[in-house]
């Protein structure tokens, strides 16, 4: 009975191929958008979470100059040469709830090992950096305070730089040249990838900040100071304390700050929000096209019932009950939307994978989305088929056969 009914429904729908196709387009788009929404939301959430975990806890970044945050990325607007290592020490002493500070100066440089030359970012900082960023060497060791105080030429290579310079060799103990200055490699950092700042943490060489400012870049200032607050609750207070302190130290009165304090929690929140705004947008598209799809199916089914009054009369004459007619049209509407839903799921999987690829997420097969898509298209089919099917079932056999 059921099989025969589905076959009947397919026959009726195939008899009106173009119209069936048109009716189901909305469902196709709706289900596709729904799946993209689910997998985008899922992927973005995972990515943000991963970044958040890898960034370091309770981190406040103090940048020299003006930095604005757009969609979770920090963008340098203006530079300044007024932020110093002494500011960092002053923060640690003068701002309550500051646990650790690490000044950073970074810049690009050519690095050689024999004939191999690469261009990479040189990050000068202190041994505190590892703890603040939750980022450790996987081979060898980090440099020490003694090496920092002695402005020693020691380097810890980012994972990718190590591979580019040394291939499969162990770099520890080897010599490299940074801007022609010889350095001894003491360690290789663990792989980390692109982090919340948007910079590839594997494409850099970390050296003592003193060596970086005095020997390599010849500057007296730093580009940023990483600050770890004692607790999450203390973050706003720490940020405010830092701002007050720096304004006093930099003698800022009646002019704009020459620094920017960015609590990374905020940055991450923005990022999560940006992702969720996109998800909301896609959700709106999904909802609208599902409604359009439902209306499309409804309209086509109503038209179909009107055109097939005679067929309904024939079916009633040979023994179809009102319920059987209702069921038939419901199955038809269900088949129509589930067919659309199936195509939508197919497209949805495709687009989800494409987006994951472009956004460099781990591509997850959106099983959850596929299941939701199928269920939603079934509900759409039943809801939009209900009224036409009811109307069909109420057509009196005589009325249908007198035409």
């Amino acid at each position, binding site marked *: *009975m059921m099989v*025969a*009914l589905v076959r*009947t429904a397919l*026959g*009726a729908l195939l*008899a009106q191929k173009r119209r069936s196709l048109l009716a189901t387009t909305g469902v196709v788009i709706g289900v596709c958008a729904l799946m993209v929404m689910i997998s985008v939301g899922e992927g973005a959430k995972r990515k943000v979470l991963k970044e958040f975990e890898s960034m370091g806890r309770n981190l406040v970044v103090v940048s020299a100059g003006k930095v604005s945050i757009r969609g979770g990325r920090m963008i340098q607007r203006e530079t300044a040469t007024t932020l110093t290592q002494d500011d960092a020490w002053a923060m640690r002493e003068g701002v309550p709830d500051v646990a650790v500070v690490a000044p950073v100066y970074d810049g690009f440089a050519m690095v050689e090992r024999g004939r191999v030359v690469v261009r990479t970012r040189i990050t000068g900082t202190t041994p505190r950096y590892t703890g603040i960023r939750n980022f450790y060497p996987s081979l060898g060791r980090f440099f020490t305070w003694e090496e920092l105080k002695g402005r020693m030429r020691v380097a810890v290579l980012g994972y990718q730089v190590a591979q580019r310079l040394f291939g499969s060799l162990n770099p520890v103990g080897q010599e490299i040249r940074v801007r022609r200055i010889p350095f001894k490699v003491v360690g290789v950092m663990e792989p980390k990838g692109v982090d919340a700042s948007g910079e590839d943490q594997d494409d850099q060489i970390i050296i003592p900040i003193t060596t970086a400012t005095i020997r390599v870049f010849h500057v007296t200032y730093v580009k940023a100071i990483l600050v770890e607050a004692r607790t999450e609750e203390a973050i706003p207070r720490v940020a405010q304390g830092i701002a007050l302190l720096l304004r006093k130290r930099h003698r800022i009165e009646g002019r704009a700050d020459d620094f920017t304090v960015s609590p990374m929690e905020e940055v991450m929140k923005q990022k999560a929000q940006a992702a969720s705004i996109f998800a909301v947008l896609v959700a709106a598209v999904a909802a609208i096209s599902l409604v359009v799809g439902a209306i499309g199916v409804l309209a086509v089914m109503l038209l179909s019932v009107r055109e097939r009054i*005679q*067929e309904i*009369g*024939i*079916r*009633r*004459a*040979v*023994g*179809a*009950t*009102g*319920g*059987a007619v209702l069921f038939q049209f419901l199955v038809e509407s269900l088949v129509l939307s589930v067919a659309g839903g199936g195509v939508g799921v197919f497209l949805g999987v495709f687009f989800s994978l494409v987006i994951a690829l472009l956004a460099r997420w781990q591509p997850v097969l959106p099983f959850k989305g596929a299941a939701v898509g199928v269920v939603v298209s079934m509900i759409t089919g039943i809801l939009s088929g209900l009224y036409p099917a009811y109307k069909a079932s109420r057509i009196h*056999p*005589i009325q249908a*056969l*007198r035409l």
Partner: protein
Amino acid sequence: MARKIIETVDLWKEYSLGDQVIPVLRGINLVVEEGEFLAIMGPSGAGKSTLMHILGCLDVPTRGKYILDGEDVSLMNDTHLSQVRNRKLGFVFQAFYLVPWATALENVMLPFLYADRSPKDARERAVQALTRMGMGDRLKHKPSELSGGQQQRVAIARAIVNDPSLLLADEPTGNLDSASSREVMEIFQEMNGEGRTIVLITHDREVAAYASRRIMLKDGLIMEEG
């Protein structure tokens, strides 16, 4: 005495238009026995189709009693009537009434779709019925690919496929040329010869001549027999 397939007692059908009540059938008393071939004649608007719809359980009388093959159907609800149609009745209409997008075979199998228990050999039975109507080589044809006479033969195959107790035909030759009409009427006569009970409505005396008994319906009453 032969079994009564149809027995009506003082059957009335009235339509109300506004506050006006229009009686279409005004007390029909009719008995049709098993194996009879009855032709109902009468002028247009006499109520022939109305009567056939009631006899065919497609409609219900305003009052009166109708016993079909031993079952009182005058008090049945819509669902029950549908089941009775499926089990006991076969219809042939003037306009053939085939499902346009389905094949001849699918059309003939239609009654099985709504049977309580559809027989295992539904398909063979449908093929058989079509073959009997000389349509065995047109199983996959759509109605639009068939002539009027062929469509009516498919409709007759559908009407007899579930072996009904009563075959009802409302002007089955109304849309056919004389050659096709003759063919169709010969089929009816043949089926009556095999013992099938048939009630046929027609305007045409020549068509009515195939029946074993004729009645005249006029102004909602059976006027003459003969």
